[in-house]
């Protein structure tokens, strides 16, 4: 019989063993979740990073280096055999190459070479227009959502007294948070695209996305406002400041970091959603970049390419093979990277902030 290390150490009874086993079961469940998340991240980072980091090229002018995947527009990929060598080229390159080959063959008096090529849409070039489109969508919709959301939160936290109106508003916010994103898409399509006749445009996408994140922003902002101690307000009011002066000088400055950090979570949501922009703002392909417009007002009424929609298109509309998987994984990697960075920043900043403000 072994003796315990010290007299107060607990003996491994059956009950304790069972308890430990159960806790291990819980622990395994927790780590299964983390592993699943890690598997998704790992797969996309492993297979996607080579596309992005393999696309660096040196250029002749400043900054002497460029990343073709990040800076070019999508192109059709041509795969063909020429002179026994298998080549892969983007659309423009392929045409130039073919013409030069034919011309050289004609000059040498040989018959023009035949090119048998397989083509894969969107599989060459890069995703620059999609990145631009996503950034535009995020910036515009967050501007709208922050304006509306912060103002709502100020009302709910500073002005509102519990009454029918406020309860009604809170109920609406709560319910709005549960509405599926595709329903927002339908709503945006019915209201902005058709009823307001804005067509598929940035503006329609902005408002649709803004309304979608509104509950997130309001809840986050209200939490930040509530965290400002009541004494700050009372002190200001006691000195004779009006309500607005109090809010402006004694509440908002202290709540602002919190509002902004928590709203970053809203940015992650806006950037990540596909369904609401499918019919309101996203184009499958567009040659022009957004600032390439004739009138300023055209800027707002143009559709854009967006990263999430591009992922949807390249993963569902073109076949899966070695030539297409590069652009699929590359796009997913860039997109996941952007969204993950935003979310990470939000979570870290929030944890940091919780520790820093102690009144």
């Amino acid at each position, binding site marked *: 019989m072994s003796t315990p290390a010290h007299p107060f150490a607990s003996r491994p009874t059956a*009950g*304790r063993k*069972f*308890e430990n086993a*159960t*806790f291990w079961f*819980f622990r395994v*469940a927790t780590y299964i*979740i*983390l592993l699943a*998340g890690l598997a998704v991240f790992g*797969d996309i980072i492993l297979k996607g990073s080579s596309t992005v980091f393999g696309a660096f090229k040196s250029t002749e002018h400043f900054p002497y280096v460029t990343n073709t995947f990040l800076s070019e527009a999508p192109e059709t990929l041509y795969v063909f055999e020429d002179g026994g060598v298998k080549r892969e080229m983007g659309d423009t390159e392929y045409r130039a190459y073919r013409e030069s080959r034919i011309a050289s063959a004609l000059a040498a008096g040989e018959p023009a070479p035949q090119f048998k090529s397989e083509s894969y849409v969107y599989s060459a070039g890069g995703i620059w227009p999609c990145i631009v489109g996503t950034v535009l969508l995020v910036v515009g919709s967050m501007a709208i959502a922050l*304006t509306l959301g912060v*103002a*709502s939160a*100020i*009302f709910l936290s500073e*002005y*509102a007294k519990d009454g029918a109106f406020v309860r*009604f*508003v809170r109920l*609406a*916010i*709560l*319910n709005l948070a*549960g*509405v*599926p*994103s595709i*329903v*927002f*898409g*339908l709503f945006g399509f*019915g209201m902005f695209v*058709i009823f307001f006749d804005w067509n598929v445009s940035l503006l329609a996408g902005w408002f649709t996305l803004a309304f979608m994140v*509104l509950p997130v922003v*309001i809840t986050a902002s209200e939490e930040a406002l509530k965290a400002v101690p009541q004494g700050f307000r009372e002190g200001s009011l006691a000195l*004779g400041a*009006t*309500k*607005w002066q109090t809010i402006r000088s004694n509440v908002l400055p202290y709540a602002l970091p919190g509002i902004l950090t928590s709203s970053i979570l809203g940015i*992650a949501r806006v950037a*990540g959603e*596909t*369904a609401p922009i499918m019919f309101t703002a996203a184009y499958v392909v567009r040659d022009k970049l957004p600032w390439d417009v004739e009138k300023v007002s055209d800027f707002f009424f143009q559709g854009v390419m967006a990263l*999430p929609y591009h*992922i*949807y298109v390249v*993963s569902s509309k073109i076949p*899966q093979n070695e030539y297409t*998987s590069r652009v699929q*994984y590359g796009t*997913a990697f860039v*997109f*996941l990277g952007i*969204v*993950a960075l*935003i979310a*990470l920043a939000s*979570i870290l900043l929030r944890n940091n902030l919780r520790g820093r403000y102690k009144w």
Partner: protein
Amino acid sequence: MPSDVQPVSPDAVPAKPFAVRKARTRFFGLTFDECIRVFFGGNAFVAVIVLALITFFLFREGSAFFGQNRESLRVYRQAGLEYIDIIRQQEADHTALTRYLFAIRMKVVATLREERGAVIQADLEAAKNAVQQLAGAEGGATSTTLVSARARLAEAQKADAALGASINGELAVFDTFAERYSDTVLPVRGLVSDLGEIATGIKSRYIENEDYKVARSQFIQAGKQGEADAIQLREIDFKTEVAAITGILPAYQQINGEFTAALQETVRELPVLPVASLQPRLDRFKVLTQDYVAMFPGIEARLKAWDPLTPVTWSKSFSSFIFGREWLTASFWQDWYGVVPLFVGSLVISLIALIIAVPLGVCAAIYINQVAGPREQKLVKPAIEFISAIPSVVLGFFGIAVLGQTLRALSQFESLSWIPGFPYSERLNALTAGVLLALIAVPTIFTLAEDAINNVPRAFKEASFALGASRLQTIVRIVVPAALSGIVSAVLLGLGRVMGETMVVLLCAGNRIAIPDFTAGLAVAVQPVHTMTGIIAQEMGEVARGGIHYRALFVVGLVLFFIALLLNYLAQKIVRKYRISVG
């Protein structure tokens, strides 16, 4: 300053101006502060407005659906398509019976092969493997061994073919029986296809005429009377047109009589199966056939009673959407907009997701809040929240590119074949989508459940410990029951999240619009399905604005919207009703 309003004080000392003067600029009778208040209040009201607008626009675009659907059903009836579908149903039932026969045959062949061909099968497999190995290791194997292995393979194949032939020979009687049986329906089938052409003719002429009418009214609106008059309208008189279809009733009755006789004649003497244990199935088949024949008078009666001019009621239009078992668009015959297959698809996927996500999410919440140390807590909590940031389209892509194949490969392992539905061949199905959706639901369930557990007062736990309960007992008996309302509402909100998710199901669910076959038991999980969210995302871009299909998609959106509201309401209600009071 003298004024008639202000009474002048008797001493006439001028009043001192206030040290602090409040400039009360008023807009619409409101002070500056009140204006700001109204501004903020107005912004808060935006949430209400948006919710109202969503409802309004979904209704605005969707509500006309029921009228259009009613019209479509009216044409379906008046052009005689409905009439033909009654007969067609009869034909379809016969096809189902034939399929039953075929299933019996498959079973027989499988049993016989198992009984007699086990050795041959093993030989064949071994020879195949040997050839493959030798051919794979080209350099290592001498050509003579390869040749001999090939010869053995050929021999085994020959034996296999001989076995197949002998089984087929034994089934010859059964095959003639099956053929005779399936041929009995031919006259009915011929009749249906003849009638179908007439009916679709009527329908297409009617639709063409309606299009002309629209064009005409557009010309008249544009003031082009001449062009409008040039369009000749040919009104369809359904009554006379349909008479050509209903007129076949006597012929149908005759055909039906022959059909009945032929069926009964065929099943009078059943063939004897080479596998005795399957004979009861054949007897069952006879009973089924007799039941089938017994339905015929009912069909005839329905045909006789059928009247093309019975009006289609609104409730019919409504119920054909809510209870409609078919979602069929762009069909030459008749488009059906029944939400049931989509709803069931959404439900199946959500259930799979919840079955995976609830145990994981709740266990993780208990672990992190009650068991884990502070450092583990600090690391794991943000990590799980971080998972919720993975965009759903990326998860969908992961499903297409990796998870679909992985799960299918997993299902093909011999040792896992006891799991219902395994092995399967469809890469994209409800299971793939459900597993990914579980990953979406887990962070929601985890965060909310963890919150709920965290809100259980410390005193509860302390009291439990003081009474000598162990940690596990405290957790299971005290903490979790106290937080149960929060956990349940977390699960409901997770369900809402999963039901409303679009991209994952669009990419990974397989997108087959049919009610999954529940007779397969749990194997229903590996069938491809389509969902409500998926159908909107998939078809919205391709439909004509204002058409019935377009409106139907909006009504599906409306259904989704109300499901989301309902789940939200339930979650709040549960939290409020069962909230523990600390007192």
